[in-house]
């Protein structure tokens, strides 16, 4: 009896600190969603694409309403000026001014790179809240860029999703991921991103710079730099219509 009590005590003494040490993964995801998602937002960004051969920059303006609607207009370089992209629910259209055509991006084309970057159209399609897509479990703690982070392992509970698994290094204080790894169902690491220049904007922590690296692609990665961002501003409905692509 004494022996059994001793074993139970040892077991409980191991479990209780572990439970106390690691917070609920779902709770952290909710906090991340609060920081990264908003009713709507308008932002001006630059994508610096470090290719295998050269580096080039693309500038764009994006209007987003919730997680279902998004409209992007490319402003630079000249060749891409006027190219527009509209996302409604799970559909994506691109307008090219040089061809004066609107093409729907579907099927395997969604896996194509956006403007030669390390981001795919599929990545752009999946900006819904993490809590709507993944279960989360805190599996450890590490330091990233001098900041204490929870290591969270995410597994998807929705079937059709680009990344079946994710691993996040979440800033314990600001509840913002500082590093992300995206995995295929097979466990292959597909993409990695480093989030930095985290700023407090309208009461939420937001990364102004994200370095994406497609692990299956040669090159030095793609930097996404948020130059200006406004949260919860009024965006007219006509922006999110196919008619606005040709305007």
């Amino acid at each position: 009896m004494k022996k059994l009590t001793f074993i139970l005590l040892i077991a409980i003494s191991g479990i209780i600190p572990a439970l106390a040490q690691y917070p609920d993964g779902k709770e952290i995801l909710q906090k991340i969603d609060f920081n990264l998602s908003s009713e709507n937002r308008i932002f001006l960004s630059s994508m610096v694409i470090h290719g295998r051969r050269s580096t080039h920059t693309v500038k764009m303006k994006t209007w987003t309403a919730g997680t279902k609607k998004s409209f992007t207009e490319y402003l630079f370089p000249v060749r891409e000026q006027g190219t527009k992209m509209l996302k409604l629910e799970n559909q994506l259209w691109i307008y090219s001014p040089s061809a004066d055509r609107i093409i729907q991006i579907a099927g395997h084309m969604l896996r194509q790179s956006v403007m030669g970057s390390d981001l795919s159209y599929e990545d752009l399609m999946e900006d819904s809240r993490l809590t709507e897509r993944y279960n989360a479990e805190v599996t450890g703690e590490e330091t990233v860029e001098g900041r204490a982070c929870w290591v969270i392992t995410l597994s998807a509970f929705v079937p059709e999703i680009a990344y079946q698994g994710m691993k996040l290094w979440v800033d314990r204080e600001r509840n913002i991921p500082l590093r992300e790894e995206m995995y295929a169902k097979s466990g292959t690491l597909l993409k990695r991103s480093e989030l930095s220049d985290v700023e407090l904007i309208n009461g939420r922590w937001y990364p102004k710079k994200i370095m994406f690296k497609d692990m299956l692609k040669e090159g030095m990665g793609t930097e996404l730099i948020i130059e200006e961002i406004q949260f919860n501003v009024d965006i007219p409905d006509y922006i999110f219509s196919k008619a606005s692509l040709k305007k």
Partner: protein
Amino acid sequence: MIRFLFKGLLRDKHRSLIPFLVTASGVMLTVVFHAWMTGVIGNSIEFNARFSSGHVRIMTRAYAENAAQSPNDLAILGTDTLTGIIAAQWPEMEFAERIYFAGIVDVADEYGETRSQGPAMGFGIDLLSDGTVEAQRLNIPSSLKSGRLPAAAHEALLSKDFADKLGITPGDTFTLVSSSMYGELTMYNFILSGTVDFGTTALDRGTIIADINDVREALDMHDAAGEILGFFREGTYDRERARIIADQFNARYSSEEDEFSPVMTTLAQDKTMGFLVDYSGKLQGILVLVFIMSMSLILWNAGLLGGLRRYGEFGMRLAIGEEKGHVYRTMMMESFLIGLFGSVAGLATGMVIALYLQNHGVDLGIMMKNASIMMPRVFRAHITPATWYIGFIPGLVSTQIGTMLAGIGIYKRQTAQLFKELEA
């Protein structure tokens, strides 16, 4: 003596007809087979050389590693200058810049929305500059099924089946959706000038052919090309010369440290065509060996049968004092005459058939219908200098070998036994 033997052969048909027919048909088969195989292999090599690998091929080192995927982000830059320099350096060759690409061909309805679309593979070739022979090189004029060749910018050809599937005819507009050299999604409008049918599934499934400058514009590849192909002006591949040119080029322009430096490879180094090039070199040796061995066996057998039939005759000749060596030599002389006339007859018949196959060819389009590799539809025989002797010499040699083997029995006859045999 020869006249005497010749008369004997003509008058005793049992002695000459079978060996003559065996030799003639063997030589004929070898001549036709050699011309046909040389033609088929040569057609396949040339077809692939013209469409994809050239006699020599210049790419960047990085592109060459994944050449099958045509990675245009790793294309050669400054091709105008490079092509000018190498054309002056190796005037025996013609160089052609090419861009191979993949994408989606999209056809709009009256509202500008997608009506139909399909995956395409494309060739960007020089169709519009003065004196270009690229269209002829790819056999495009004779493959044209409707419309005409592109005559201005923004015009392109589609394979006939593909155009039918998309529901467009010459004069209609379609959009190419592809990736630029920098990986950006690009859209470019073309007017369909005509449709082509190469008779090769790999090419007819979904091909778009446009002028290289249009493709450069579409894929943002100014002064760049995925590959530069080199062709010998005389039209046929010279393995040794190609190797020398490639060595000279690589020593001068290529650097192992720079993955974007150009590198020249030869047709024989091509992963898929190399085997065929090697095989075509060995073909003559294999043919001669197989022919001589099989014909010798057949003629040896025929000689043995003849020897048995003429057993009494040889016995009589030996009995009346003819030397064994003389009997053997007359047999050899007879077989030489049979071999000579058989080979001439076989060569003449074989050449007539080979010439017909060379001029008219055989349409094997039905067999190629589901082939995924690039092969021509019509195969033609090709008569080379070797075709003249590849069957003729073995025809002579094998009859001699056959007779030599069969005639050994003469030396085993015992003179003392001859009279007993004759008495019996």
